[in-house]
C-alpha cells in the first residue's frame, strides 16, 4: 500500500524532482573478531527495478535480507525537498580471519545498472574460545554486547522461590514487547536445563497473554515456555539464564501532507533472563510419620474391595488409589498387608496425571488381584497414607477402612510335588506330560482327509451326470419291449435249469422259451407260432438250411420228451445244446 501510494505521489509530482541516483554500502564496523557479527546495509535513493546482493563469499549470512523503504519530506529555506530511501540489510559473520571483502551489490534503476564499492573488513582471531554449543552453527554465535533495548525484554516468573522439597513451583518465561513493534524473527539460543528439579513442560509454544502497562508504556506479553518444577533436594537450586535472539521491526510513522507512511526499521536484539536461584527447603523432620514415603501436596485415599465374601480359589481385587494434586511419581503407594494364606499378584499400576502450575493433578492407583487359598475369616488392616501439606506446613495422615473377609468353600490345593514356586500367584509346573509327536501333522491337515470332503461331492456329481446321460439316451419302446422279452426268456431258461431232474416240467419250460423266442425274434403272431410257421419264417430270413434242420430235430426231440417220455433224457446236455443253438441263431438273426 505504501509503495503504491508513493508511486502515485511520484507520478503526480514528476520525476524531475529527483536528483542523482545514489547507491551506497554501509557497514556497522570495519574491524571485528572472528566470532562477532557485522551488519551491512545497501542504501539506494530510488526504488530499483532489480537488486542483486553480493555473493558474500567470505561470510555466513546470519540474517537477512531485510528490505525496507521510506520517503522523507524536508523543508529547507522554504524549499520542499523529497527524498526516498530503499535499503537492504544483512547480518554477517566472517568465515575466516584476515582481510575479507564484501563484494559489490548491483541495482538497476531506469535501465541503468549501479554498483556499490567493495568493502574490506579486517577480521582478527577470536579473543576467547567460543562455547562449544554455540560455535557449531553460524546462526548460534556468541552474542554481541548489544544492550537489550527497552523495546523488548524477557522475565522468568517463579511462583514460589522458597518451596519445600517435593513442592511444585511454576516457571513461566514471559516476553514483553512494546506495543506497535513486530517480531520478524525469533530464536532461542540457550534453553535452560534446570538442575536439581523434576521438570515437566506444561506448554512449549508461545501464548499471547494480553497487554500490560509498565513504566508508562504498553507491552504485549507472551508466555514463551511454561514449566512445572519440583525440587528434588534441599538447597540453592539455580536456573541458568534463557537467552533469546530476535529481530524486532519498529514501525515509524511519517506524516507527509495528507498521507501517512510507515517505515519499517529492523532491530536485532538479544534478550536474557537473569540467573535465578530457588531455595528449596527440606521437609521438617519433626513429626515425620513412619509411613511417609515422600508425598507432598494435597491428596485423598480410596480403597476399594471387589467383594468381602468369596469362595476359596476365587480371585478378589483390592484397589488402592490416591487422588489429588502434588508430586505424583515421586512417592510410593501404600501396600496393603494381606493375610499370608492369600496368593497376591503383582499389582496393576495405573497413572492418570497431568502437570499443572501447582504439581501433578490426577490419580495413581494399584490394583491387586488376590486369591484366598483357605476358607476362614480374614481382616485386612486399614491402609494408611501420609503426606506433607506444604500450604499448612504439616504432615497429614489418611486412613482407609478395615475390611473383614469371609472366605467359604474348601481349601485350594496347590500342585504338590514342586511346591515352593507358588509365590506371586503363579501356577506351578506340570509333573506329567502327555507326549505327542513333534513332527506329526494333525490328521485333519493330511491330504486323505481333504479327499474325504471332496469324494462325496465327486460321487454325487457322477451320479447326477449318469442320471442326466440316462435321461438323454432313453431306449425306444421296441427295444425296451425286446429287452423285457429277453429277460423273460432268460428267466424261463433259468427256471428250466432248476428242473433238470423233472424232464416233463423241464421240456415244457424249454418249449415255452423257444416259442417266446421266435415270437419275439421273428415277430410272429400266435397263429403262426408252430413248427411249419417258424420254419417258413426262418427261411424267409435266409437262415441256412442246416440250422433249420437242426431246429426241426430239436423240436422233434422236445415233442418226444414231452408227450412220449420213453427212455431216459439227458436234460442237462439238452439244456446246453439249446443254449448254444440259441446263441448261434441270435448271431445269424442279428445280421
Amino acid at each position, binding site marked *: 500500500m505504501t509503495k503504491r501510494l508513493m508511486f502515485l505521489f511520484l507520478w503526480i509530482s514528476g520525476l524531475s524532482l529527483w536528483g542523482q541516483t545514489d547507491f551506497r554500502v554501509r557497514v556497522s564496523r570495519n574491524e571485528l573478531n572472528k566470532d562477532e557479527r557485522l551488519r551491512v546495509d545497501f542504501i539506494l535513493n530510488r526504488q530499483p527495478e532489480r537488486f542483486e546482493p553480493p555473493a558474500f563469499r567470505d561470510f555466513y549470512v546470519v540474517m537477512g535480507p531485510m528490505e525496507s523503504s521510506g520517503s522523507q519530506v524536508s523543508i529547507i529555506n522554504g524549499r520542499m525537498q523529497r527524498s526516498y530511501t530503499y535499503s537492504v540489510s544483512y547480518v554477517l559473520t566472517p568465515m575466516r580471519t584476515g582481510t575479507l571483502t564484501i563484494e559489490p551489490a548491483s541495482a538497476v534503476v531506469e535501465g541503468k545498472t549501479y554498483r556499490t564499492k567493495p568493502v574490506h573488513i579486517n577480521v582478527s582471531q577470536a579473543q576467547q574460545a567460543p562455547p562449544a554449543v554455540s560455535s557449531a552453527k553460524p546462526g548460534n554465535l556468541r552474542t554481541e554486547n548489544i544492550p537489550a533495548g527497552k523495546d523488548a525484554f524477557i522475565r522468568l516468573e517463579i511462583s514460589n522461590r522458597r518451596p519445600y522439597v517435593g513442592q511444585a513451583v511454576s516457571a513461566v518465561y514471559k516476553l514483553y514487547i512494546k506495543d506497535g513493534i513486530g517480531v520478524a524473527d525469533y530464536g532461542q539460543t540457550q534453553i535452560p536445563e534446570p538442575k536439581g528439579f523434576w521438570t515437566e513442560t506444561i506448554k512449549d509454544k508461545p501464548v499471547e497473554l494480553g497487554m500490560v502497562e509498565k513504566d508508562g508504556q504498553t507491552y504485549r506479553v507472551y508466555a514463551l515456555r511454561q514449566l512445572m518444577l519440583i525440587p528434588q533436594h534441599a538447597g540453592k537450586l539455580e536456573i541458568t539464564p534463557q537467552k533469546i535472539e530476535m529481530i524486532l521491526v519498529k514501525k515509524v510513522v511519517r506524516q507527509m501532507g495528507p498521507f501517512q507512511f510507515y517505515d519499517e526499521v529492523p532491530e536485532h536484539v538479544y534478550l536474557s533472563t537473569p540467573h535465578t536461584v530457588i531455595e528449596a527447603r527440606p521437609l521438617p523432620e519433626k513429626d515425620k510419620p513412619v509411613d511417609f514415603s515422600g508425598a507432598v501436596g494435597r491428596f485423598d485415599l480410596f480403597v476399594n474391595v471387589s467383594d468381602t465374601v468369596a469362595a476359596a480359589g476365587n480371585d478378589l481385587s483390592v484397589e488402592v488409589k490416591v487422588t489429588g494434586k502434588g508430586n505424583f511419581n515421586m512417592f510410593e503407594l501404600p501396600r496393603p498387608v494381606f493375610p499370608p494364606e492369600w496368593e497376591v499378584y503383582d499389582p496393576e499400576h495405573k497413572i492418570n496425571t497431568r502437570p499443572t502450575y501447582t504439581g501433578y493433578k490426577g490419580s495413581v492407583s494399584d490394583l491387586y488381584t488376590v486369591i484366598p487359598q483357605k476358607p476362614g475369616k480374614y481382616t485386612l488392616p486399614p491402609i494408611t497414607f501420609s503426606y506433607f501439606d506444604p500450604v499448612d506446613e504439616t504432615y497429614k495422615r489418611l486412613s482407609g477402612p478395615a475390611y473383614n473377609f469371609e472366605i467359604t468353600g474348601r481349601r485350594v490345593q496347590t500342585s504338590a510335588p*514342586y511346591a515352593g*514356586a507358588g509365590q506371586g500367584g503363579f501356577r506351578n509346573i506340570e509333573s506329567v*506330560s502327555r507326549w505327542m509327536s513333534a513332527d506329526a501333522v494333525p490328521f485333519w491337515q493330511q491330504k486323505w482327509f481333504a479327499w474325504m470332503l471332496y469324494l462325496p461331492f465327486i460321487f454325487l456329481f457322477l451320479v447326477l451326470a449318469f442320471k442326466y446321460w440316462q435321461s438323454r439316451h432313453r431306449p425306444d419302446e421296441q427295444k425296451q419291449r425286446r429287452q423285457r422279452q429277453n429277460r423273460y426268456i432268460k428267466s424261463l431258461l433259468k427256471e428250466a435249469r432248476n428242473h433238470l431232474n423233472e424232464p416233463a416240467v423241464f421240456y415244457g419250460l424249454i418249449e415255452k422259451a423257444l416259442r417266446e423266442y421266435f415270437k419275439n425274434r421273428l415277430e410272429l403272431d400266435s397263429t403262426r407260432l408252430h413248427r411249419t410257421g417258424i420254419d417258413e419264417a426262418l427261411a424267409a430270413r435266409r437262415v441256412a438250411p442246416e440250422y433249420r434242420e437242426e431246429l426241426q430235430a430239436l423240436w422233434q426231440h422236445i415233442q418226444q420228451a414231452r408227450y412220449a417220455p420213453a427212455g431216459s433224457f439227458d436234460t442237462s446236455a439238452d439244456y446246453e445244446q439249446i443254449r448254444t443253438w440259441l446263441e448261434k441263431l441270435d448271431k445269424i438273426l442279428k445280421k
Partner: protein
Amino acid sequence: MKRIFYGIIFLTFSLSMLQAQQADSLFSQANRLYAQKKYAEALDVYRRIPETGKVSAELYYNMGNAAYKLNKKALSVLYYKKALNLRPGYAAAKHNLTLIRRSLTDRIEPAPLAFHIKLWKKWTGMLSVGVWAILSRLWAWLLLAAVLFYLYSQKPARKRWAFALAGISAGIWMLTWISYRSAKAEHEKTEAVVAVPETRWRARIDTDTSRTGILHEGTVVKILDSSGNWYHVRTADGNRFWVPESDVLKINERY
C-alpha cells in the same frame, strides 16, 4: 508279508515308546532342576526334549514358567502361546499368561468385537479344529446319502422324506464346514512375540519414518505380510505396523 507288516508296526511303536521314555526322563530331570530353582538349567533341559521327537502342551507350559522365573518375558509368552496352540483350553497356561501380560510395558486392550463376530468366535471355539473337521466330513457323506436316497427311492412319501433330509443335511454341512474353515484359520494364523526390549515400528517400510513408535517386549502381534526384512503386523487393538523381522519370534516355529 504279514510278518514284515507286523514288524514295521512293532518297530514304529517301540521307537515311539523309546522317544516317550527319553522325553519323560528329560522332563522329570528338568522338573527337578526347576524345583531346585535352577531355572536356567531346567530350561536348557526342557529345550532338548523336542529333539527327541516329542512335544506336549505341558512341556511348553513348564518352559514358559522357567522363562518367567528367568524374567525372559518374551520367551515366556512365546512358550505359553505354543502350549495354548497345542491345547487351546489350557487353563494354567492361560492363567500364567495373563499374569505376565500384567507386567508388560505395552498394555494393549483388544479392540472390541461386534456382537455377531463375538458370537461366531464363541461358536467356533466350542469344538477343536479336528472335531469340526470330522463333523464337516461326516455331514458331507450324510448329505450324499440323503441325495442318493432321494434320487433312487420310488415311493412319493419316501421321496418327500429324503428331500427334507437332504435339505437339512445340506444346511448342517454348510454350517460345520464354515465353522471348520474358520477354526482352521484361527489355528493357522501366524503370531509372533516382540523379543527385544523395544522395537521401533514404522507406519510404512519405505523412507517415511515420520510416523513411528515403540512396541515393547512380550507384545503379541499377528503377522499379516512380510517384505524384505520387515513384517507387517497387527496388534490386538487393530493397529497395523511394520516391524523388523529380527525383533520378533514367530510362535509356530521351533525354538
